[in-house]
């Protein structure tokens, strides 16, 4: 696509690393809005249309949206080295923090105050995940068959104790075939 905003050589590996490092420090919860603000609005490295195309590719492949987006944007700007710079930058802050958390938890995990706090944190996290389920369901489930596929997935994993890959392949293929291209074309204007 025509992208007049920047020529490839204008963006240095260092700039890519630093921008993604900033996103890695400042983004909480859903990373996508932070990516859009930094990459589309602030840096103009990708335009809005390209951003949405990259996002839908990220969502169709395994991997977290945040890291897949880093790979795609890095690749677009500076090839393989750009991808490595972007994913390193976005992962580094959280990784360092969680490394320190692990050490702290090693030392003080048994303290009654820590246990009490973590009990509250874990319960809150369950509520947070449930809210993500509700939000995603409102946004991307269309029709009763999608609810059936969702329920099948939950039952397969939690009740029938099927492994995640087996469930993913079994129910996934069923659902993809159900949304075959002839049908998807009618729904494709949702995007």
């Amino acid at each position, binding site marked *: 696509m025509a992208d007049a905003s920047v020529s490839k050589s204008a963006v240095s590996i260092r700039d890519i690393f630093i921008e993604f490092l900033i996103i890695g420090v400042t983004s909480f919860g859903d990373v996508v809005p932070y990516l859009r603000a930094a990459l589309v609005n602030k840096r103009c490295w990708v335009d809005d249309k390209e951003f949405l195309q990259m996002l839908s590719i990220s969502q169709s492949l395994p991997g*977290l949206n945040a890291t897949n987006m880093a790979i795609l944007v890095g690749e677009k700007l500076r090839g393989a080295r750009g991808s490595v710079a972007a994913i390193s930058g*976005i992962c580094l802050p959280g990784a360092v923090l*969680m490394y320190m958390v692990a050490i702290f938890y090693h030392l003080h995990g048994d303290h009654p105050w820590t246990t009490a706090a973590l009990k509250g944190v874990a319960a*809150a996290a369950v509520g*947070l995940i449930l809210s993500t389920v509700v939000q995603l369901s409102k946004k991307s489930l269309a029709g009763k068959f999608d609810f059936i596929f969702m329920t099948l997935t939950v039952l397969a994993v939690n009740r029938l104790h099927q492994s995640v890959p087996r469930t993913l392949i079994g129910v996934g293929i069923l659902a993809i075939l159900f949304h075959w291209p002839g049908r998807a*074309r009618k729904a494709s204007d949702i995007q």
Partner: protein
Amino acid sequence: MNQISALARVFAYLSLLTVGGGMAAFPEMKILTVDVHKWLTFPQLIHLYSVGQMAPGPNMMMIVSVGEWAGGFLGALVTLVAFFAPTALLTFVVARLWKRLDQWRWRPSIQQGLAPVSIGLLLAGCFTMAKGAITGLDTATIAVGVLLILMQYKINPAFLVLAGAIVGVVSFAPK
């Protein structure tokens, strides 16, 4: 050294299960890290996952903690690379080979088909976690409270997880 190669294998495998989000891999992560390799207990895994919700950046950085727990600094590093390299490579190769992937006629089908499955996996991961985290009426109240607040108000979820910690200390700490 055995632990390190086991970490690499387990997290490279889990990497490929993160369809639609990291939580999709949680039930499998519980089985492999807790039941099979016994790197940590189920409550510890839940604690690390939950604290990870307060960390910035991609939301599965708690895997670094599991790696540290099982194999020190090297374990953390190997886990980080193992968890992100396979999907990163896959995305990179797909982007390279297939500049026009967004126009492939099956791509919308894949995206729409995977949506209910990935939400189902997220919910299944949530239920797995709830079995360990929701132990009574008190913890259930916190979870439902967070859910209702997030559905009603646009608020940074990290604050609510932090609030959960405060409520936890106030209500569960020995007096």
